[in-house]
């Protein structure tokens, strides 16, 4: 019953208010959402959401079943136990002067990130990866002075042929 982070993937109808229904359900059942990311899926009119939330296995199982009851939710799966690929995108604006710029560029290279904007006193770094990688990059850039940062939250997918699909209820 260890409390840990779960990655829940839901395929939902692309209708107004779906995000609200989902977020409202988590809130009223007492779950903190670490991150929630939504975008188009491979199917027209369907979006795929990735939600990261913390809780015991049984709590997360309950929330998954409750999510499944939302009419606009087509399928939902807790993919935490599977072999998954998870990614996050971050944009980080770092203070940079002529002296520090090359040092920042080296760090960015090591992380296979990109500099996507440069000004006289800052650079903007684009990075993708799992949460740990982005946090490490952030920690290394921090001493230069972070002006602004935004992260997308996790998106995830199971490796190989596994597809997030509706599971047998209560099994």
């Amino acid at each position, binding site marked *: 019953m260890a409390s840990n982070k779960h990655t829940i993937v839901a395929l939902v109808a692309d209708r107004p*208010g779906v995000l609200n229904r989902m977020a409202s*359900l988590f809130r009223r059942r007492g779950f903190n959402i670490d991150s929630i990311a939504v975008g188009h899926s491979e199917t027209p009119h369907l979006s795929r959401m990735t939600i990261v939330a913390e809780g015991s296995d*049984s709590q997360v199982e309950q929330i998954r079943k409750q999510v*499944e009851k939302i009419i606009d939710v*087509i399928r939902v799966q807790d993919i935490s136990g599977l072999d998954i690929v998870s990614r996050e995108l971050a944009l980080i604006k770092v203070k940079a002067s002529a002296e520090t710029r090359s040092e920042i560029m080296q760090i960015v290279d090591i992380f296979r990130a990109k500099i996507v904007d440069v000004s006289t006193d800052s650079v903007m770094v684009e990075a993708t990866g799992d949460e740990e990688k982005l946090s490490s990059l952030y920690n290394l850039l921090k001493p230069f002075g972070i002006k602004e940062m935004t992260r997308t939250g996790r998106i995830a997918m199971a490796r190989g042929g596994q597809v997030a699909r509706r599971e047998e209820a209560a099994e």
Partner: protein
Amino acid sequence: MKLTGAQILCESLLKEGVDVVFGYPGGQVLPLYHTLTQYPQLRHILVRHEQGAVHAADAYARVTGRVGVCFATSGPGATNLITGLANAYMDSIPMVAVTGQVPRAMIGRDAFQESDITGITIPITKHNYLVMDVADLAKTVKEAFYIASTGRPGPVLIDLPRDIQQECAEFHFPARVNLPGYKPTLGGNPLQIKKAVKLLGEAKKPVIIAGHGVRISRAYKELKFLAETLQIPVLTTLLGISGFPESNPLSFGMIGMHGLAPANMAITNSDLVVAIGMRFDDRATGKISSFAPHAKVIHIDIDPAEIGKNVAVDVPIVGDVKTVLVELNKEIGPVRHDEWLTQLSDWKKQYPSGIDIRESETILPQYVIRKIWEATKGNATVVTGVGQHQMFAALHYYYDKPNSYITSGGLGTMGFELPAAFGAQVGLPDETIWCIAGDGSIQMTIQELGTIRQENSPVKIAILNNGFLGMVRQWQELFYQHNYSSTPLWCPDFIKIAEAYGIPAQNVTRKEDVGAAIKKAMETEGPYILNFVVEPEENVYPMVPPGAGIDQILHEPLKEAC
């Protein structure tokens, strides 16, 4: 031919077999109300408050098994539905509520009487819709009725901007719905049913707990067959009352906070709990850790999310109660549990206090309920509000008639009784409806006497008037050192109120007049109000203190602890 949105709504309701709607007009539903007069087949009943409409639709749905329908205007009209929607949601009642909304161009501008009712009702409806294109309306109504009435039933709200009601579109009512995210499981998993049969075969001390699902699914015969074939005692939740005949020797009554001692003792000592269409509410289970500590649990429920939510389950069976019981019943053969049943009967003798009525010169509320049961011979449908009167009506009337106890269980809505009794009477026009009310509870929706009078509904109303908010007072007495904070209740002269509404009524203050008064009410055509002045500080026993195990039963007041 093109129809207006309002006409499309009415035509769609007719396609769904709706013949009665409870509602209240207002600015943003004027086009709909203008159109209603073209549809005399849709009987519209004007209530006195939107809460009355939603409770009436709720009880109508409970007694008929059909979808209850109510209308309200935008803003305050819509928000007045909230309590009733939450009530219907908690008790799994099929309902479609249609609300007016400000015209599309005004949405989001804080227009006069605008409220985001779809946003507000997300947590208390099974689903809801804001219709933004008149071409979607017929499909929306079809889906709403399908969602409300299938799977685990529940309320669905359709918010209808005023300009949509006026716009025109071709009317095509779809033959079927296509909701890829909504596929209720009806039949039980055969493997799980096998496992259940095995556990049932091994059990020495099994109990059945019958919940509201038995009534919603109308599985009375199937439950009776299961219980009688396997000789398993049947206990009910509050909402399970009237799902199994109480005259049956296998019936041991209600469980939980005000459950009967033998029922609660049976659960604590059982080795197998067969939970059928119930959701392990805390009022039914008491402290979870001491609920059925020695028992394996078979849980049959149509809602997979209910399984394992509060109590760990050994054999989960997701499906419609009736369908699952039919499948289960095919696999079982006769068994006896004589020793176990004798034990339960012994507890019944040992703890008789639950249904015994003490000697009293004054009118005890239990006595009134018993007399109503005697007068109706159990053939009435009893509708209650929430409080002591609800528990007295649960414990002291004997429910043999299926589906004859209508009450607000999950939400515990005071004021439910009067509009609900009216709605039940609309659903069952030829049957006797007794509204058992508290003096506090009835005053929350007492204006619905106007509806009852206007419709000449023959509801019989018994107010158990103790001058207190009785259940709260009981808790204050038992757990808050008799500190009666804001529970003594000044009441109006109910007879004058009745008179003002043109409803015959009488006060009953003497015990010897109770029977005759009930008889008079039943013989009088149309509605009748009886105001029983009852013992002010009578308590509901047995009682399990909140937070205790359900076998920790109080049969009399606690001695002062501090």
